[in-house]
């Protein structure tokens, strides 16, 4: 399976330098279509995304992206708010809060 990356031209360039070939360049206007396209691809195992881009997505799509297991979406350079929310919902306690 492949590792893919999606994001702005600058974000993607670094990953190209690490050898990645599955690259989706997207700007704010077509980000939503591009990420859904990347997620529908069965050969992608891991999808690296810029955490800042995710914040601009509509809530339901962001939820879908973060809950996805095939591919696994790993946000880079963002805080843990998405996981924190999930933990809060499943366990019932905000586990991240106590250690701040």
């Amino acid at each position: 399976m492949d590792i893919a990356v999606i994001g702005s031209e600058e974000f993607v360039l670094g990953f190209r330098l690490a050898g990645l070939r599955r690259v989706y360049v997207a700007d704010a206007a077509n980000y939503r279509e591009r990420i859904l396209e990347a997620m529908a691809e069965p050969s992608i195992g891991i999808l690296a995304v810029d955490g800042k881009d995710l914040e601009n997505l509509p809530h339901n799509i962001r939820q879908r992206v973060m809950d996805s297991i095939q591919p696994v979406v790993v946000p880079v350079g963002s805080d843990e708010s998405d996981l924190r929310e999930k933990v809060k919902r499943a366990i019932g306690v905000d586990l991240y809060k106590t250690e701040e």
Partner: protein
Amino acid sequence: MSVHEVTPTRSVLLDLKRRIKLSKSGYKIMKMKRDGLIIEFFEIMEKAKKMRESVTSDYELAMEKITVAMAVEGEIAVKSAAYALKTEPTVVVGSKSIMGMMVPKVEADLSRSSILTKGYGVISTSAYIEEASKAFEKLLETLVRAAEIETTMKRLLDEIEKTKRRVNALEFKVIPELEEAEAFVEFRLEEMERENTIRLKHLKRKGEAAAE
């Protein structure tokens, strides 16, 4: 099941008793599963936290390096080096089981190529680009490990939620309803028994009166 839907007979009572016993043992097992999953989750959460942190720090470092490379060499040079790369990292996604739940096990083939086999020229490419490339390779490695842990964590959380809902449904809905139905059937049967006794006494009295 509503109380009024059950027919108060002995066979129904037996059936209800059997179902209550089954539900209770199921409830116990589910509760144990939930607790087991939560213990597992706490272990993985620590790892996930550390992983996120290292992804962020690696990312910042890599971004710094590539910015320096672009500033020194120009964007075109960095881009051309990036496009010239030959090796492509791939991952193999296997699976392992945690309490009967399949979680992915990601193994990456991230063989770091030496500068000579990378694809771009050694002389034309500066050390800054090489450094940036190294930093991103490291980030990629961290990302792959983070991916495994995060998926495991997401799966665990989903499973915990599901199990919790089942436990609660059994505890607060299924078992109380069954017990209520059982109490109703028992009460009705006792009531019928009493009615019968009275009826028999009545008949006996009548019989005696007729004999006299």
